[in-house]
């Protein structure tokens, strides 16, 4: 088990517990950012769950990603408060600045743009979140600033 893959690690942790398939999938996605085919196969073998069942679950729930997202995942909140305060314009600005649509990643793998349901910071609406960092009171003018901030972050690394 020295080089146990993520799938078998997650299975080892959760197989004895009840109601644990979704938890095991979270475990994989937390580390890797997405759940790919090989993880699902490993999980199926080690947890004794049919692969079809795993894909059924993976594709039903919005939270799980099947492909690697960009390094910086931009989540634009589409909750009601953010909608009323004009987050659609912020989303449009992200789309035009990055040249991608929602649910897509840029060609260089730097950014991934997605819409999410209410992140629960309605007091700060409109809100977007980049890799866990929340930006409140967004305006379209802030968009290039935030993108540059993250370009700098990845340049340093």
């Amino acid at each position, binding site marked *: 088990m020295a080089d146990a893959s993520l799938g078998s690690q997650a299975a080892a942790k959760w197989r004895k517990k009840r109601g644990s398939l979704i938890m095991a999938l*979270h475990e994989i996605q937390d580390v890797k950012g997405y759940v790919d085919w090989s993880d699902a196969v490993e999980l199926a073998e080690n947890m004794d769950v049919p692969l079809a*069942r795993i894909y059924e679950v993976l594709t039903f729930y919005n939270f799980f990603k099947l492909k690697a997202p960009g390094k910086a995942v931009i989540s634009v909140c589409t*909750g*009601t*408060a953010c909608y009323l305060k004009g987050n659609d314009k912020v989303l449009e600005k992200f789309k035009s600045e990055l040249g991608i649509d929602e649910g897509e990643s840029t060609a260089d793998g730097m950014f991934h743009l997605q819409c999410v*349901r209410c*992140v*629960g910071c309605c007091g700060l609406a409109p809100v977007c979140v980049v890799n866990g960092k929340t930006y409140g009171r967004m305006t379209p003018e802030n968009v290039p600033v935030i993108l540059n901030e993250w370009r700098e972050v990845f340049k340093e690394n």
Partner: protein
Amino acid sequence: MADIDLEKRFDIHEIAKNKLAEIEKFDCNIYCCHSTGCKSSGSDDILDLIKSIVAEHNLGERIRIVATGCMGLCAQGPLIRVEIKGQKDRLFKRIDLAAVKNIMEKFVIPSVESGKEKAVDSSIEPYVLSLDLPFFKKQEKVVLKNAGHMDPEDISEYMARGGYLALEKALKTMTPAQVVDEIKRSGLRGRGGGGFSTGMKWELAAKVPTIDEKFIICNGDEGDPGAYMDRSILEGDPHAVIEGMMIAAYAIGATEGWFYVRAEYPLAVERLEKAIKACKKNRLLGNNIMGTDFNFNIDIRLGAGAFVCGEETALIHSIEGARGTPRPRPPYPTNKGLWGKPSCVNNVETLANVSKILLKGADWFASFGTETSKGTKVFALTGQVEHSGLIEVPMGTTINEIVNEIGGGVPAGKKLKAVQSGGPSGGLIPVEYMNMPVCYEELKKIGSIMGSGGLIVIDDSSDMVSLAKFYLDFTVDESCGKCAPCRIGGRQMLALLDKINRGKGKKKDLELLKRIAFAMQKASLCGLGQTAPNPVLSTLKFYESEYTNKLVDGKE
């Protein structure tokens, strides 16, 4: 809690007493809001700076710094509250690092050191938020009493504020039937939106015999966009929910408890995990709790971004590790739930009320509210409103009081048009109905619902057809696809709304919208499909002219 010996018997009274004595030693408490909203606006750095300034002045023994749950006024965050013995409590808003430095060095430190309140100078003045605002004065905090006033990650602080006394009372002085009866008499109703009597639900669950297992499930799958009450309760006072769940378990004879929480709420999950761990360490979970023969354990399961999982049968499927699709009821989960075992599903806020009712009595609880809706309700007041945030008011408070007094009305220059309650399953409360009291029945009368507690304030710049489309877009996207009325009906309604919005709609399209809506309400399998047409029907009812103005043949 590392200093507690695992072999020792844990006396909550002793832990509470010690903690109170410890708190009492400090001359000043600084509460720093540390919930998702304020953390997003930088409260982590602020907390660090306050700590370092206090250390710099060697005042660590006199000033206590507490990272708390939500203080409520999220739009003004980050917030800190300063309470110095014998002096006026102060609240500071929208602070940044420079402001914190000023507040600490020019106000807090000298006030503590001299024992006399220092005058607030012009560099601090803009950050002062008056505690006399109606936002604070008009609220009645039952569920949110602890949030903002204690460290949610410290179980002893919860005990110092009376935590787990209700559990002790239930386990040692009451029979399960008496607990059920007390909750029934209090008039507590499900806070997740359904409004079913909690006592009745417990009674039904208690009647089903526990053969091998029975479950209590806490529904923390708060999916309504624009609502974050449950998240704030879990972040601000996780032990209150756990205690409520344990009392419920005792009342109905449950053997195990499950929390189902949205994966999008990492901080709430983290605090809940810590709280459960602390309970285990203090022997409040496990076998022979508090020396009685009550055995109970709790586990957490995460959602994965499916709105429909807020529906109890879908939620149960999700915990079981399957697609979150609902199934027809009956059988109700109280008879056949998780893994086919009897299960009782309660909402976060519902459970958070339980310990208070047991301690203060059903009559006390029932003294708040209206004839049919008792107690208080937590709302997330958002949208086009001055003081957007988390509030708690007695049932029966009017919409006007909530929006115009507590919320401070819509920002200058705009006029209030309506308030939306109940999220994508709810409807509108137009400005003409502002004096309506918040109560399950009254809201239903005009085609809205109490819902879980999202209140969205809408000003006159909003177009109601687009708003209805926004909500329907959401429910169509979140429909699980199991039953045809919801899967197909929603999509057809959306296509019609789109047509109307593009100026291509005709009068007969409005009729068709209503017909599909009726079919969905009657024939959908679960609450999602049954209520999905509500925002459309509600806007049609009150703002039909906005629809007809967009029709080809609509204008007179």
